[in-house]
């Protein structure tokens, strides 16, 4: 008789030949093998063909999951959930701030099976765990970093799940991907591929990706089953917002210093005849710096100039100006530069929430921020997506953004607000080459 076993993100089939396009013979194991994602289809086919088999894939440890409180889904949330429940596979597209989490908890309450929730950030792990515990009577685990506890419902990050799916996968018949646009990337997609979960839910505000990989979402999760756009929702379900670009100039001394450094850099480039046509040309300079003192000097000048432009003190003045304008609002200040982030935190005595922030402090700070005991926080990438601070209505972005998705997500922060307008400020330094940051990644 055929038997199916779980083995590190795959299903091993012993005891006979299986002729399906996604099944391979594995000489190492002397058995057939397929990716775990094919498990539901494989089972379906074997049953349809009337083949007898022993199934040891899913670990059937029973779990108690009971509703604790009424979810009170809004009308569009209920519609989304019902569509998803038809096939129990698929993606729900909904702008940030409209309660995607509720749809996810609704799916868990309806299916009542062990569930793995995959989210992009630690903040979201905490947030989902809180939300699930609030509505469901069950054991909730958090699985990331050093904290690795499993529950009937386990919340984990994409990074942790990528590694641990081969151990955890077969315990969770339902898998929920929050901010599901992350999933199709070459690494993260393996979370879906190495999971045998027959039930899959994806949640996102923006499924589209510039690399077109969102075309794989139907295979990895399922088709888009429900979609409501920002335009449809604006004014009806979510607040409107304004964007204002604040241009700051370097101070006189800084300006002079910046020009001097850039001149030094450009002169070397001209003399050495390096041409910058593509970002990788920058490497030529880096390579030269190994041998030539002048190249080393040029590189050093470029780096200092860049730092000067990015952490310009006049940016801090601009921040002060904006904060003064909103003494009674809640604000989030974003910057990707840790130096600048430290500087803002220190100057205005505001908490920083970054990957460097110790866990205890981060938790206290977020609680204080929700309660209003602090009015603004400074952060890098950690908070970018879907963190629930209901009444934030000022967003300050320092130093421009690197991609449109991040922009939308950041703006999304501001969309969860009380009546009134949200305000987004983007602070950029003019007269510097800050806009063309591509060298930095070369």
């Amino acid at each position, binding site marked *: 008789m055929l038997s199916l076993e779980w083995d590190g993100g795959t299903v091993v089939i012993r005891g006979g030949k299986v002729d399906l396009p996604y099944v391979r013979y594995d000489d190492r194991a002397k058995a057939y093998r397929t990716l775990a994602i094919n498990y539901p289809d494989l089972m379906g086919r074997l049953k349809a063909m009337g083949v007898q088999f022993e199934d040891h894939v899913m670990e059937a440890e029973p779990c108690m999951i009971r509703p604790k409180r009424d979810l009170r889904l809004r009308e569009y949330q209920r519609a989304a959930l019902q569509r998803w429940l038809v096939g129990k596979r698929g993606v729900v597209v909904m702008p940030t701030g409209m309660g995607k989490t509720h749809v996810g908890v609704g799916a868990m309450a309806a299916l009542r099976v062990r569930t793995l929730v995959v989210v992009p950030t630690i903040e979201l792990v905490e947030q989902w765990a809180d939300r699930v515990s609030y509505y469901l009577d069950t054991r909730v685990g958090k699985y990331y970093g050093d904290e690795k506890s499993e529950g009937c419902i386990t919340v984990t990050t994409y990074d942790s799940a990528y590694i641990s799916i081969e151990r955890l996968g077969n315990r969770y018949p339902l898998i929920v991907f929050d901010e599901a646009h992350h999933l199709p990337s070459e690494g993260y997609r393996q979370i879906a591929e190495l999971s045998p979960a027959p039930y899959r839910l994806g949640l996102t505000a923006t499924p589209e990706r510039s690399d077109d990989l969102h075309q794989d979402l139907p295979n990895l999760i399922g088709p888009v089953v429900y979609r409501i756009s920002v335009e449809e929702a604006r004014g009806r379900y979510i607040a409107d917002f304004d964007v204002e670009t604040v241009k700051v100039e370097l101070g006189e001394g800084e300006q002079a210093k910046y020009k001097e450094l850039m001149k030094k850099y450009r002169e070397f480039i001209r003399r050495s005849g390096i041409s910058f046509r593509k970002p990788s040309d920058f490497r030529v300079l880096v390579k030269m710096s*190994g041998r030539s003192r002048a190249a080393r000097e040029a*590189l050093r000048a470029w*780096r200092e100039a860049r730092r000067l432009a990015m952490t310009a003190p006049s940016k801090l003045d601009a921040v002060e100006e904006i904060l003064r304008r909103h003494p009674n609002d809640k604000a989030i200040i974003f910057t990707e530069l840790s130096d600048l982030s430290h500087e803002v935190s220190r100057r205005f005595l505001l908490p920083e929430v970054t990957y460097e*922030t110790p866990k205890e402090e981060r938790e206290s700070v977020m609680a204080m921020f929700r309660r209003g005991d602090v009015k603004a926080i400074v952060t890098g990438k950690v908070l970018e997506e879907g963190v629930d601070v209901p009444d934030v209505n000022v967003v300050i972005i320092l130093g421009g953004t690197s991609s449109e998705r991040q922009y939308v997500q950041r703006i999304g922060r501001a969309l969860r607000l009380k009546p009134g307008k949200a305000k987004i400020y983007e602070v950029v330094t003019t007269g510097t080459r800050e806009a063309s940051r591509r060298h930095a990644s070369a």
Partner: protein
Amino acid sequence: MLPLNLMRIRFVGRGQVKPRYINEDEVEVVRDVIHSFKQGVGMRLGDVIRSIEYEGSDPRLIGGLIHILKSRTRLEDVDEAALIRMRLDVFREAAKLYPATRENRRLVLSKVAEKFGYSPERVDADLLKIYDDERVIVGFNEPEAGELIREYNLSLAQALLFKALDVEVGVEMSGAQSKALLRQAKLMGLMYVAESTSNGIKLTIDGPVSVIKQTDRYGTRLAKLLPLLAGAKWSLRARIKLGGRVYLYEDSSEESDFPRPASSDEPVFDSYMEADFHRRLLSICKEVKREPEPLVVDGRIFIPDFKVGDAYIELVGYWTPQYLERKYDKLLKLKIPIIVLVDEKLATMAWRKLPHFVVTFKDRPRITDIYRLIKNYCK
């Protein structure tokens, strides 16, 4: 191991890639960086790092060296819990005078300082000590330049292996060392196939998914195996996936200079019975090898317990049924004759019929039982 963004590689002809190990020109940079850390004792870590970064050499080399040297650096002690309490207090007070303009900032710091019994300057200075970069270096375990270069080179090769689809290693190593290697591989959920070669064994290592789909998900784990080759003679062939293309990375103990192994360890025995038998063997034969070089049986590694001259000896005592079954299977397929000592409680007909010299024992194996078989090998 270095983070990927600090990886230095060079592409060589026909789709090959190699780590860009430290070359002679760069030894000077290595010395400079070590020197900066040494001089940096008493300074803030961030300042020391920045001063090195601004020096202008290849940022990946510098970054890599800093990454390794950080672990040799001791930073000033900070009572993190107390510091967090103070920081939270500062944030709370600052919110009452929000936004903290320069004047307000002074007021907030004074208020918190009074509460904690420090000076406002101290509060201001301590505030950022939550971050490593803001702490002062109090000690530095200075390495020799050569030592750091070897550490760096190993880390670099490991970083390249992060992107490996699979690894093929040819090794000449002791049974104990190969056992440690395979135990580690198994612990990490990897799979291997072994072949014997003219001078040792060849192991092809990857994971369950590899047979279905090209993936670098085992790369980090494969990289962790690299230090376990230290001291042995080895060669390596890895397929590396970079930017959607697959490159070949070849290396060997001849070509690369990695850290020397820690002092050779005493033989570790699985059981008292083995240790006891080893002692008895040594009392009559000079040339006794404990866990000799591995043999290959049907793609798997088999490491006999002892080798006396050219004769292999395997002890079979009580163990789990699965273990015994696997051992029986391997012995059945082993083409090289071996002396098998079996506890008579286990010695069913199947065991007695193995195509080897099977000797049963009661309670414990005795030399006299096998003396006849080994005397020609025992000198």
